[in-house]
């Protein structure tokens, strides 16, 4: 029943150009999380709002821009401070159960870095990065991940990154799709929330060109 929203090519290109300056996570932040925590009296909860300068209308567009699309179970996670100390991710160990696009070792595990996490610093101060309007991934759950391949792009993170911080993660729960994005007005949320997971996977597969054998 999903209807296709068609964006003119130039509009998408323009949006991407505008977006490129905002896309790198937390790069506008000037001080380290440790400094910010100290300045805030020893405890900092950063309600991180991921950039929404690029909003994809559907999974076809998300799929086009993803190097890797994986289905997998989040086994465990650890939070990691970026080398510059200004940003944190939860690095999820994900057992790859299916590869819808790209190359990944099926049946083995891979690391996926998602904004979030917490840390106690050596000086006793605490910092947490809590994404707003985004349901954090949980261990033991099955997700579809739209990813940038870490091998293709230099990255300060340990794992693969979501191609869209806001729209690149979908949980498969009770046979239905639950986008991690919780902004109701987001077209991807409107279109896919509650959709049958099999149908959802089929739509992604249709959007990805078949590999030549």
């Amino acid at each position, binding site marked *: 029943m999903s209807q296709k929203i068609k964006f003119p090519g130039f509009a998408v290109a323009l949006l991407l150009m505008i977006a490129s300056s905002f896309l790198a996570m937390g790069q506008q932040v000037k001080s380290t999380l440790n400094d910010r925590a100290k300045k805030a009296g020893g405890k900092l909860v950063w309600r991180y*709002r991921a950039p929404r300068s690029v909003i994809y209308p559907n999974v076809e567009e998300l799929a086009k821009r993803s190097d890797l699309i994986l289905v997998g179970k989040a086994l465990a996670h650890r939070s990691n401070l970026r080398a510059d100390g200004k940003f944190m991710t939860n690095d999820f*160990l994900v*057992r790859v159960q299916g590869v819808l696009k790209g190359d990944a070792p099926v049946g083995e595990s891979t690391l996926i870095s998602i904004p979030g996490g*917490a840390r106690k610093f050596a000086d006793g101060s605490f910092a947490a990065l809590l994404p707003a309007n985004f349901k954090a991934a949980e261990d033991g759950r099955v997700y579809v991940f739209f990813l940038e391949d870490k091998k293709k792009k230099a990255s300060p993170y340990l794992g693969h990154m979501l191609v869209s911080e806001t729209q690149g993660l979908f949980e498969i729960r009770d046979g239905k799709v639950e986008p991690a994005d919780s902004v109701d007005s987001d077209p991807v949320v409107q279109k896919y929330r509650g959709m049958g997971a099999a149908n959802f996977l089929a739509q992604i*597969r249709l959007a990805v060109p078949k590999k030549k054998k």
Partner: protein
Amino acid sequence: MKRVFILVPLIVLVIWLVNGAPTSRRSQPKDAVLPVAETTAAAEPVSDPCNPCDPDGSGELTCLITGGVWNSDTCYCYYPSCDPSGLLESQCFVTGGVWHPESCYCEVPSCNPSAPVVTSRVPYGHWTECHNGYLWECDGSFVTYTMFCQNGSVFYQWTEYNPVCTNDYTTCGGGGGGGGGGGGGDCWYDLDCWCPNHGDDPDCEDYCWWNYCQLE
């Protein structure tokens, strides 16, 4: 005595035959292959004509939910390794060990670490969220977990931020963005409400894009 030797294997064989193939939840030997395309699952619209052996995707879904790995070319589902649930591997990851998937062996440092225990809980942070039309009051805590070695030294320690949210069925949000920044009254911070600088949205001070706010 000889009869017993014949009888016991026979009983085992009969039980095995009666139960049929192992269920998907049970661990499978490495590279075990189960055709699940024939198993039934919730009906979905036929949506993938490119996948003739599993046109409605139900086989794939059953496979993924049960922790299997799906081969869409052959429509076969297999359950990898000696750790199908991933539990052993996740424990290994948490303890910082090195995982060997082929043998399911976790190489852990020699201190024989304990299970994680909560060694500190520092409550901090309060905020409200509007989800699915209801207002949630949230409080958070920094919780520190520690794993000790047998000699009492710290093996590994990490901190998580655990928010706990409750609601009393107070409604919020209303129809969402349609009105485009009017006064409505039932709009709560943290959502795609008004910005910039709406009084109910203290985070939304520095940057605004398409009615969404961003810090810094």
